[in-house]
């Protein structure tokens, strides 16, 4: 797998924990990339485990009775498809985590699901603030969902974190015979806003992995000076093991 991260100086080979999470008080902050220390599985027995990125999934719903565009299914598919010993199961599907190896690093995804209904729209900023990436899901069989998507993109552009990586997922590509949104439209739009675009099928597990890998590659590497703390404060990692629930 191609590592999206340039090899950073590894002066402190092996011991990434204290380093990477050095500014523990605010690791996930505006910079959005935060690190998790875990065990590593590299040849030396200690690789870098890092980066938990925090996602928002914004989406819209066709209408409330509808099962929606399927963002929860995408997440579930992503999280559950590959059995991962490292994740502690979360209590529900609204918040899920998954650790993905990326080069010699591990990225931990903290996926925040956002209620897409209009009435909850106003709460969205709480969810997307501080996130490194946003996945916006629409339903290729519903033209309206694509319109709503554009509203979300606009909102994110205006109020979202700077440099947020945006990914557009056209879900239900298994139903392409009743498609309303041509792939071409989506691609053009994505290009215009500099977003990743991919058509997925949560049902058939198509492109789910690719979607997240694409995002993973786009997440900027750690701010180098976030690494080099002044040394005076060594702060702990943010709970890696399953010991804690609230992470």
């Amino acid at each position, binding site marked *: 797998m191609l590592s999206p991260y340039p090899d950073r100086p590894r002066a402190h080979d092996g011991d990434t924990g204290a380093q990477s999470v050095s500014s523990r008080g605010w690791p996930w*902050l505006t910079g959005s990339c935060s690190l998790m220390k875990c065990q590593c599985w590299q040849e030396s*027995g200690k690789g870098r485990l890092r980066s938990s990125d925090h996602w928002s999934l914004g989406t819209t719903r066709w209408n409330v009775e509808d099962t929606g565009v399927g963002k929860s299914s995408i997440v579930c598919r992503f999280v559950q498809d590959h059995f991962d010993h490292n994740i502690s199961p979360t209590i529900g599907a609204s918040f899920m*985590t998954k650790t993905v190896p990326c080069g010699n690093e591990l990225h931990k995804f903290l996926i925040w699901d956002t209620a897409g*209904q209009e009435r909850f729209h106003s*709460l969205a900023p709480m969810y997307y*603030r501080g996130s490194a990436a946003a996945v916006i899901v629409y339903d290729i069989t519903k033209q309206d969902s694509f319109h709503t998507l554009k509203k979300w993109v606009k909102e994110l552009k205006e109020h979202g974190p700077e440099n947020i990586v945006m990914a557009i997922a056209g879900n239900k590509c298994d139903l392409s015979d009743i498609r309303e949104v041509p792939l071409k439209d989506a691609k053009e739009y994505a290009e215009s806003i500099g977003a990743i675009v991919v058509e997925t099928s949560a049902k058939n597990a198509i492109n789910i992995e690719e979607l997240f890998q694409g995002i993973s590659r786009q997440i900027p590497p750690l701010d180098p000076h976030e690494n080099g703390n002044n040394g005076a404060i060594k702060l702990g990692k943010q709970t*890696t093991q399953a010991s804690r629930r609230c992470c």
Partner: protein
Amino acid sequence: MEGLWWEINGTVLLTEKDLGRTVVESQACSRASLEETSAWTMGTRSLDKRGSFFKLIDTIVSEIGELKQEMVQTDVSLENGLEPTEAHSMVRHKDGGYSEEKDVKTCPRDSGYDTLSNRLSILDRLLHTHPIWLQLTLSEEEAAEVLQSQPPGIFLVRKSTKMQKKVISLRLPCEFGAPLKEFAIKESTYTFSLEGSGISFADLFRLIAFYCISRDVLPFTLKLPYAISTAKTEAQLEELAQLGLNFWSSPADNKPPNPPPPHRPLSSDGVCPASRQLCLINGVHSIKTRTPSELECSQTNGALCFINPLFLKVHSQDLSGGLKRPCIRTPNANGTERPRSPPPRPPPPAINSLHTSPQLSRTETPARMPETVNHNKHGNIALLGTKPTPIPPPRLKKQASFLEAEGGAKTLTGSRPCRAREREPEQEPGTAGSPGGAPPAEARGNCTRAEPASSESRPPWHGGRQRLSDMSISTSSSDSLEFDRSMPLFGYEADTNSSLEEYEEESDQETMAPPIKSKKKRSSSFVLPKLVKSQLRKMSGVFSSFMTPEKRMVRRIAELSRDKCTYFGCLVQDYVSFLQENKECHVSSTDMLQTIRQFMTQVKNYLSQSSELDPPIESLIPEDQIDVVLEKAMHKCILKPLKGHVKAMLKDFHMADGSWKQLKENLQLVRQRNPQELGVFAPTPDIVDVEKIKVKFMTMQKMYSPEKKVMLLLRVCKLIYTVMENNSGRMYGADDFLPVLTYVIAQCDMLELDTEIEYMMELLDPSLLHGEGGYYLTSAYGALSLIKNFQEEQAARLLSSETRDTLRQWHKRRTTNRSIPSVDDFQNYLRVAFQEVNSGCTGKTLLVRPYVTTEDVCQLCAEKFKVGDPEEYSLFLFVDETWQQLAEDTYPQKIKAELHSRPQPHIFHFVYKRIKNDPYGVIFQNGEEDLTTS
């Protein structure tokens, strides 16, 4: 239980069959007590059954055959009833004055484990002298410089900036080429170990202590500087430690003419050999057939081996002495030597109480039992011993009587646990009230350490109780005492004790009736069969020792925070009382919570940088855990005392700004809606579930720790999910969950939730905000906001822009706070020292806003320091060795800011003192410690 716990005289060995690992537990039981005896016999019994599992134990069997028999016999004799005890206790009373008893109790233990009064273990030496060898800030060059002049084997522990980890810098002999080499220390979540070694330790001290006696991956063992290894008393060590880094260049660091084996300081009283060998008596040594270094061979990676510090000496003796372990039989022989170790005591004076208070005598008997047993064992050994050594006559006599007494003590078992329990509450206040860290341990240590002065001051029954607890089979209290003794320096409560306390704390919060609950729980424990109890106890010991460094640290910090002699203590206490007394100092609830959070973060930073924690936190807690531990400690020492106040204040704020009323009204409104109107299209919890959730929310209100509150919130959410999923079988995302959560919160109809959520959101450790807790907290906050803004006509509309702004601000605030604050920017606080000619310096942290003039500050000072003639005093700035009296219209905070902004850091202090006071500086110097930065 798969593993069998084998506890012998201070060592617990866990053989985990499945894992094929051995953990030598650093469970510090520093004496042979009755429970040990029973553990012993028990152990031997189960050993008969499962002997095949444990080669380790097999080896012991042969070695302790005789001893075992003795023990079993004793057990049998115990069943004979009370007679012997009573007889014995009377005897004891007759011939033992109170303080004398202490003495009796103490000595065997001391000699057994070399506690301070007799001899210092390597661990003790390390603990006392860490300012010398633990030099985390030293650079490589400086370390090289220091070690250059030292003999091979001398070491420093420092933090390598290159590797970003702690290293042992070890002086090598010339033949190695390089003058020194560094060995990196690996820190995992719970342990410290050397790179390349499979042996892990609970803290740095244990690690170093181990490598002082076993080389493992090192080229040779570490050596303590001569002065340290030969120091005879704690005081001497303390004196050396005072020198800190200067030790290395001071004359104190004198080298021996020709370096003797470092670990064999000969002491004239013969204590050391005896005491060292003592450990062999119980076959511990044979257990040690697997010395840690041997263990390491069989481990591939990550295997754990906790080394019992008490055992170090035995091992060390091996290495420095014969290099070979004494042969199997030596334990017995050595055992007989043991009685020699305690200093000679005068014959016990007679006491008359025995006839007058049988009750008393009874309580005291068990109290004495641990020693009794100890003696007994040794007595046995002496009898069995192949190499009898001279034993002082009085001792001999005692041994005989103790033999009988043992039986009696057992019969008291039933009543014992109760008393042991009772003791615990007493312990708490003691701890709380004690200034500084060491005293609690000291205090308890006193009564065990043959310090008549302190023991006399206690009523006899008290002492008796303590003893009782020592023996209690089912509880952990004995462990606690043992632990204290093994780590006298720390003043920590015992591990198990603390875990118990933890439990109580929980129950405190969860049940509202902690004493009852805990009592119930406790008393139930003694219905358990003995075996189970003992096993449990051992298990608890194990778990707690896994937990200990953290809990000990939290406790230590909490103690420190109550100690006004420390800067940290002052800071915390001043802040807490300030908040409580000045209700009007915050403009809003957010403002208040934010300040508290900021204060906690700052204090945390201060603690991690300051040297007030002794030993330094880095030496006990692996680096990646430090912040977690500090955070917990902050909750305990800041939020715990403030919780009630904060709650009341929050309510006041919400009442005042109308949001309470708004929420109340809207809650009613929302409750009347049916779920669909709230956007709920998933199954909702029924009344029973809502009740359950309510209970959880109620519990949440009783907690002070935001983290624990969040845990409960997660439980509530989990319950909601369960209900949703049970009834439909599908997974629900936020689209469904948020409406249901809103509905549930409305159904619960708890106005207090609003403040609870606010409390959590503002006070939770920021790093947790991105995890699951943060997510559901955000959701709960969102749900409450929806309710608050629920209005018929608005049902499906946006929240008012005001709310949106609030939400945004909150998140921004909590997420953009990047810079790490330092102690120096305790904005709005000014540390002012008060200098009096006669009384030296005291310091106080005052609330001084940026535009408060010196005149006002003076007024404040006069009030705070209770100065009768304020016109005689003024505020001075001491900077660069000069004094400047501040003009009345200057702004101290601005001056402070200005000083901080200078390129070079200046040390400065604000001092409130008499205007005409000549010997400037002189007294000030004394108080400097107190002042640090303003």
